[in-house]
């Protein structure tokens, strides 16, 4: 016979389950079902316009394995994740360090750095496109006005466009990750810092030995979030190139998927094959997020 306390606990659990149902239904309907459906579509040859799909088994994935364009786009995706992510987190740490060290006007600086995140990526990409314009762009204009004509470059040309876009991406996203890290830092009880200072620790020492270990969980979430954002990166790259054609050096997996399924001016309409690319992106998210969590696993510090 269960005791009274156990009965209350069972009742609570049932109530929780009932309350979970609407969210569960939405999650299953809007995420799990489309994901399973995408997996099913990826096993077919389909233009997206007919009611019948031709089942081809794993042929789309076999073709992907031999598709050099896919592997080039995969490499570009990896570069966005690691080089872009490296830049973003390096700067986010630097800003977090300064903005949590008690400097004046820190809220103003924080708002300025966060600002790009309240602007639509399309507008940001267009703005950066103007900055980089080889003829009338601000960057070359500034260099010319300083008498540094020889330093001017075709920033959006095939050699530099990827680096140019990475700089723009770092500028765009650094504020978001900085805010996440700062919110973690602000949760740390001030006693820890006081104790460290009394013990004679400097600001840098405190940052690396107190702050970072105590916001480790937050950092892991931020890294996983970036991996997801980087893998599905599309809108910024599309808008950066004026919406006509995305330069091939910016074809991430997401851009390649778009070109294969819908395209725009040059429409390929291979919905099944494009969906296979999407499935590999999902796998990439799961694998990379898993690796990130494993690699960054540490003993939990509670405070």
């Amino acid at each position, binding site marked *: 016979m269960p005791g009274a306390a156990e009965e209350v606990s069972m009742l609570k659990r049932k109530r929780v389950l009932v309350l979970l149902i609407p969210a569960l239904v939405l999650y299953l309907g809007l995420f799990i079902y489309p994901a399973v459906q995408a997996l099913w579509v990826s096993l077919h040859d389909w*233009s*997206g*316009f*007919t009611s019948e799909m031709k089942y081809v088994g794993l042929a789309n994935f076999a*073709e992907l394995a031999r598709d050099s*364009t896919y592997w080039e786009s995969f490499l570009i995706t990896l570069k966005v994740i690691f080089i872009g992510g490296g830049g973003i987190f390096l700067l986010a740490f630097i800003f977090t360090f300064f903005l949590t060290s008690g400097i004046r006007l820190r809220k103003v600086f924080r708002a300025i750095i966060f600002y790009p995140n309240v602007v639509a990526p399309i507008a940001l990409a267009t703005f950066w*496109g103007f900055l*980089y*314009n*080889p*003829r009338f762009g601000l960057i070359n204009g500034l260099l010319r006005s300083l008498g540094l004509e020889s330093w001017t470059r*075709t*920033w*959006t*040309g*095939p050699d*530099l*466009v990827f680096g140019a876009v990475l700089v723009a991406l770092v500028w765009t996203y650094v504020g978001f990750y900085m805010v996440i890290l700062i919110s973690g830092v602000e949760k740390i009880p001030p006693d820890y810092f006081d104790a460290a200072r009394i013990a004679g620790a400097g600001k840098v020492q405190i940052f690396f030995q107190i702050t970072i270990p105590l916001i480790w969980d937050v950092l892991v979430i931020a890294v996983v979030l970036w991996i997801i954002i980087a893998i599905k990166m599309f809108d910024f790259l599309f808008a950066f*190139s*004026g*919406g*006509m*054609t995305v*330069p*091939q050096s910016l074809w991430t997996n997401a851009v390649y998927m778009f*070109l*294969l399924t*819908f*395209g*725009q*001016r*040059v*429409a*390929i*309409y*291979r*919905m099944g094959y494009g969906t296979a690319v999407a499935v590999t992106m999902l796998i990439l998210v799961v694998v990379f997020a898993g690796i990130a969590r494993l690699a960054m696993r540490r003993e939990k510090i509670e405070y």
Partner: protein
Amino acid sequence: MKTALKWGLGLFLIAGLAFAVFAQGKTNLVYLSKWNVGEVTQGIINDAIDDWASDHPNVEVERLWSGRNVNAKLMAMVQAGTPPDFYDEDPMLIENSLGKSGLALDLTPYLKKVKSYDIDKPVFDTFSKGFFDPWTFRGQINTLPIQQYLTVFWYDKTLFKKLGITKTPDTWPQFLALCERIKQAGIAPIVMDGGVNFYNMYYFSHLADRIEGKNALLDAINDKTGKSWDKPGFLQAQRYVKELRDKGYIIKGFEGYQFPAGQIDWVQRKGALLLIHTYMPIEVKESRPDDFVYGSFPFPSVPGGKGSQYDLTSIVGGVAILKATKDPDLAFDLLKRMVSLKVQTRFAQEALNVPTIVGVELPDIFKDLEDIMKKQTGTFRDYSGGPGQFEPELAQTIMYPLNQNVLFGKLSPEDFIKQVKQKSIEYWSKKK
């Protein structure tokens, strides 16, 4: 008070019922368009639909102005089981989406049977002979062309006068001499948007067909053995393209130009020559200096080449009717309004398009073009994506990237031929 409320409620119900009955009696047609609200073409199409709708009070035409990503919207509507009645896009895109899927209505019987809105002959006969040939797929016409674009070199007559240039080039050597002269005057001879991979095919494709003959490039693209790429004209064509780059005839920094940076530079006289469709003048209308006078000439011939200087590329924009439409006769009745004299004249005068039907006066800016069209010896395939798209996957993943690499100085013409041949063979073997 209660009585008044009852009366009010009763009247409200009756009005609602009457509205429902009235609404049910109306036929609803859905027009899905690639144009955005505010574009000149959108305004003309919208007015044409309004005009037609005023003659058909029992028909409601819902208009979805969806912009250039309209194909994604079409796909979603088809998959949801609510396809539109009309879809306006480029014929090749229509063929690759609706045509091949069997969703497009064959317009041939309607074109041949139904009389034009304001000309006393069937709609088909209001077009020039052979006009529909490039847009006939598997014996079926999916699209009624409502706008036409030809590709020519554009220049500013005022600038040429200032530079003392009195004659446009007829041959490639004359063209190179012209470029040199413009360069010596301190102006970039050629302008192009390096970022637009399909427009950048123009120099190679024109040269290839001028040397090897009309549609030789298209034949090579479709050659599953890849042997056609051994024809010397293709290598020569890319060598000529490389020469333009090596001699500094293309505007500095073009590799990083994103549309429409190049054509804005051109209309502001930073560069002299622009090889592009006839839809360019409307796009630069706002940036054009007052004394800018449009001039145009066809792509020059190559001495000893098989192609003619007056073989032109022509592409069209048009409208398809979906098979699922409730009333095909009614739908075609609306569609034919787009190729009436009145609407075609508006396309020519306001949207600065070349009309698709015969007998419509061209605007002044197309004066040179009119002369060119009179001398036209044939039409060859355009390669500019969209309406000119050819085997889209091969174009996007093989042809355009390799061509870009030659233009950007990253690939030699010899390696271009080697790679395009090898990759084309691989591509076609994959498609077996």
